């Protein structure tokens, strides 16, 4: 496996984890958020 494949693999894993975390955060814990979702779905 070359270095490019490893980097891409890591990026994909990070993106998937980040997305999963975002959804979990929305459903679970608004009190920890820094910004109220007063404007846009994606705000955290």
């Amino acid at each position: 496996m070359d270095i490019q494949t490893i980097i891409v693999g890591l990026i994909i894993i990070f993106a998937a984890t980040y997305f999963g975390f975002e959804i979990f955060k929305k459903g679970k814990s608004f009190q920890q958020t820094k910004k109220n979702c007063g404007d846009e779905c994606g705000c955290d």
Partner: protein
Amino acid sequence: MKDSNIKIADSKSEPQKTDQLVIALAGNPNAGKTTLFNSLTGLRQKTANYSGVTVERKEGNWNIDGEDIRLIDLPGLYSLDATSLDERIAREVLMGSLDELPKPDAIIAVVDATNLERNLYLVTQLLEFGIPVVIALTMVDLAEKQNLEIDVDRLSEMLKIPVLEVKAKQKIGIDELSAKVLEAAAGAGKPKTDWNSNGNGFHESNTEDIHLSLSDNEAGNKLIFARYNFISEVYQESVNPVNEEEARFSEKIDRVLTHKFFGLVILVGILLVVFQTIFTWAALPMDLLDAGFGTFGEFVGSQMPEGILRDLVVDGIIAGVGGILIFLPQILLLFLFISILEDTGYMARAAFLLDKLMSKVGLHGKAFLPLMSSFACAIPGIMATRTIENRRDRLATIMIAPFMSCSARLPVYALMIATFFAGQTVFGFISLGAVLMLAMYALGIIVAVIAAFFLKRTMLKAPPPPFVMELPPYRLPNLKTVLINMFERAWLFIKRAGTVILAISIILWALMYFPRSEEPGNLNVQQTAVELGEDQKVNNQLENSFAGILGRTIEPVIRPLGFDWKIGVAIIASFAAREVLVSTLSIIYNVGEDANEESPTLMNAIKNAKKADGTTVWTPLTALSLMVFFVLAMQCMSTLAVVRRETNSWSWVIFMFGYMTVLAYIASLVTYQGGKLLGFS
């Protein structure tokens, strides 16, 4: 009996007091509180939530003669009766019972001179907290236009607190306000100002008594009457109506703008103008951004060595995120117009018009605000339903909130309209694009009303309580407030593109890139295509990728809607977030691009996409069918997560997802098949 939701200040739990002065800004909604807050703090603001709740806490640094003061902007309130979450939070801030905030040293009560009596009710309650209060009297000029002459000195004398005329936009009265606030804060700890010292049938000895009285109807009513008696006395003494006969400007306009027929016609006209302007003005910057991202992609592609990483960066990240970011000018313009409409007071009239319609189907009057918020995003809309006390009314509002066309749908509508309906007009002068855009917004509202009608008569049966809506006076929009609103929204859009959309784009690219149908060494997609002299290989790759397999699996189900498997892939992806459709199409059609060919825009790629038999994949009817699907389908994981949290039930989440998606499918099917039957293509 004490209200269990109200915490009484406890010296042990009180946060550590620092030397920095803390000033709270309180006032009725539309009293000019935000304008004053912006004027005092400029851009030195930050927004957070109060712990454990979704009420926004806005605070900023107010610099007075080199001293930084912590200015807390409380939620807009009519009273401190603690019947809503906002009121309860404000009460807790003033009592110093929140861990994250010390008790304020003084309060600036923003009082709208045109609605003095109603605003003074809150002031009497603020005075009861024993914190020094300074009144910032706003909209005095408007009050004068309404022939109300306010004797500020007399008002101050009767209330026994400083009262200052303030024009935040022009920075008039700010220096005097600063001085009085510092003076008042220095006197914190002194005996509280007693509005009731002359005796109005009720007397409170301390704040706790007032809270105790909340659950005691008789005592509570007595106190309310006492407050109103006092306010009435203050009003009569300090306000001189000059000419009551003359009709007020706002009332005259309202007779037309809130008329049940002409009001709606004007509302539709205003929205058409807004949408038409958005399309016209945004065209050039969007083209520039589109070309910019194309060139950037080519540049990065030419600089990076061939391989999987280059494919990810160029075809996944730049195409995916760039595809969304080109819609930034439209988002900016949309929120510019929304801010102007809000700031002039027109939005409240639009609310009034639609509220009549909503009350007919049994929706609570308070549902209007959450539904209006949902035009930006369903999440704050759903959270705003907390102001609705009745659970059934609240659930009905939550269930229909996602039908409102949120800003995430805008890129989808815009892409379809720009690709298939650009340059066409209705009656020779109205842009077809603007009409279609308005139709999509209207479709969402109509279906929401119908859905509410059925929900309120079946699963969520309950009589709607009465509701009174206040119409603020018309005023000139404040440029600063409008621009701040617009840029805040734009920043959130950019941030979302750079975080969630970026993550989804990467995942989607991977789903389209793997598994590799053939792996001859380090071969990339473009290279393979060039060698074969055809896009056939690229198509095979997409078709056999994870995403392709998924798309082809659902193709038989979506074919009657006019969609092929590639659109199917984009639709599946858009269930994560609606605007991802655009990113996905960008990635799908970018993958087939010849490296040496001039980069085609997404719109051209969509128009030229062909099926295996050589016919075009997309037609105007396909685009319309897709737009209708997007109006009605529940395609937002974040919204579903919030619904789960707010309803505390998976059943409602499943119900919402199910009924909205089924409705979307049926409506899209009717659009496409009906259109074909009528001879459209």
